[in-house]
């Protein structure tokens, strides 16, 4: 999970695009996926997602996310096919409507998940937050919550690893193969993890306060997020996606 949401530096048009435009593009893909029932449109959107991954120079990452999601999707597809009984029966209990609906659900899932993961590989979370404050007038406290949450994911992992190591050193068998046994051992970790996180949260709040958290305004950000030609293109593409999804039956 750590790697999944990690920013990959680069200088592609997608990297240079205004974070707000990227959010717009992401949302447009999602909206288009929900508006359409046409499998071909969904397929096109999926290809579009992957193309964006390639354009961002994160092709390998896009495909690895796709592969990960594909396994889940396959499971979901089988489940849908088994459950939906409407339509004409093709063989055994499988119906044509079942197949079509299952395909649509799975495609939609893929189309929606991919850009949400991709946007974090081409954008720093701090840029998303700053742009949201500057351009969309989102209150800074909310943006701060977002960045801090993301900032603390690796921290949390580190701490968890530290606690597990120290427990292993004292004879707790975390390397056990038994999943249930392992789960039972993870449970007692929650208390120390929770206590240290709460303590840390307090300290971080103080650290933010002594560096002027309360003084921050919409204009405070040093980096400016302008709109360029790439952004215009992205807005047009976003509009085209939604219009296309509505018009193509």
């Amino acid at each position: 999970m750590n790697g999944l949401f990690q920013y990959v530096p680069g200088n592609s048009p997608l990297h240079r695009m205004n974070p707000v435009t990227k959010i717009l593009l992401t949302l447009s893909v999602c909206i288009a996926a929900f508006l359409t029932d046409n499998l071909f449109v969904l397929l096109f959107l999926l290809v579009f997602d992957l193309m964006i991954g390639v354009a961002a120079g994160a092709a390998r990452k896009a495909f690895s996310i796709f592969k990960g999601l594909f396994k889940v999707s396959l499971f979901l597809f089988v489940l849908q096919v088994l459950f939906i009984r409407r339509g004409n029966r093709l063989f055994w209990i499988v119906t044509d409507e079942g197949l079509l609906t299952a395909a649509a659900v799975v495609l939609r899932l893929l189309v929606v998940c991919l850009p949400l993961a991709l946007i974090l590989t081409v954008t720093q979370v701090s840029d998303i937050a700053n742009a949201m404050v500057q351009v969309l007038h989102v209150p800074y406290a909310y943006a701060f919550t977002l960045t801090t949450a993301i900032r603390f994911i690796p921290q949390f992992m580190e701490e968890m690893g530290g606690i597990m190591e120290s427990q292993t050193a004292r004879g707790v068998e975390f390397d056990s193969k038994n999943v249930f046994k392992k789960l039972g051992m993870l449970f007692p970790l929650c208390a120390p993890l929770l206590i240290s996180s709460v303590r840390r949260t307090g300290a971080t709040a103080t650290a933010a306060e002594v560096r002027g958290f309360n003084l921050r305004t919409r204009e405070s950000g040093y980096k400016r997020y302008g709109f360029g030609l790439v952004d215009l293109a992205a807005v047009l593409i976003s509009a085209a996606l939604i219009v296309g999804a509505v018009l193509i039956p």
Partner: protein
Amino acid sequence: MIELQSLTFRYAGADRDALHDITLTIPDGAFLGIIGPAGAGKSTLAHAIGGIVPHAVHGDFYGAVRVNGLDTADTRLTDLSRIVGTVFQDVESQIISSVVEDELLYGLENFGVPREEIEERMTFALEEVGIAALRNRTIASLSGGQRQKVAIASLVALRPKILVLDEPTGELDPSSSRQIFSLLRTLNREYGMTVVVVEQKIMLLCEFAERLAVLNEGRIERLGEVREVLGDIAGLEAIGVNCPRSARFSSLLGEKTGQPVPVCVNADEAVEAARRVIG
């Protein structure tokens, strides 16, 4: 100027005072080192100067702390932070951003430093602390020592009038520790910044600080010029403060030979003193 007047502080739920009746004046432009055994109240004292005690820490607070004439108890923490910058001992919780550059920008942006000054201040802080190459790295990818440098740089960039550092070299190797202390000296001498530093590495303090305060069980046991404080080796060791070997040597030399030997704070001075005694 920092003035502490009969400051007593007891953490909520504690059964003894963390600081007891501390009266201390730190003039503008001073370089004060604070030393003492674990649990002596060093961090609490550092936090009291920055206003974190009593604003963000609960407990009983008696007496007064004034920073540039402002009573810390009556002044908002945000307003105090414009004057006093504090580097915390726990580096992890001090870092707010995910990327080094953003961490430095954070305070600069919030305190409304003019845009054209920001770049220059960031470059200065990054270079002086020795982490210019880390500018675009994520915090998660840094070692403990590197994070500590980022924390220090983010405060140095703010250029507060008073800089308080709580064990700023705790995770640093000897050469980085020296680098940080020589930066503190530069800030102190060239920018007139008042520097208050809590530190366990007494050799560094003796070399760079002008004055020393020795804390023990919440009280100030000794206060004065570095050499003056080091004059009483036996007293310091009784408290649990390790003295530099050069100072121990000069004190022993005086004792054995019956001649007056000045306190030595480094090896060169010790050699010089020995040469003079031998004649």
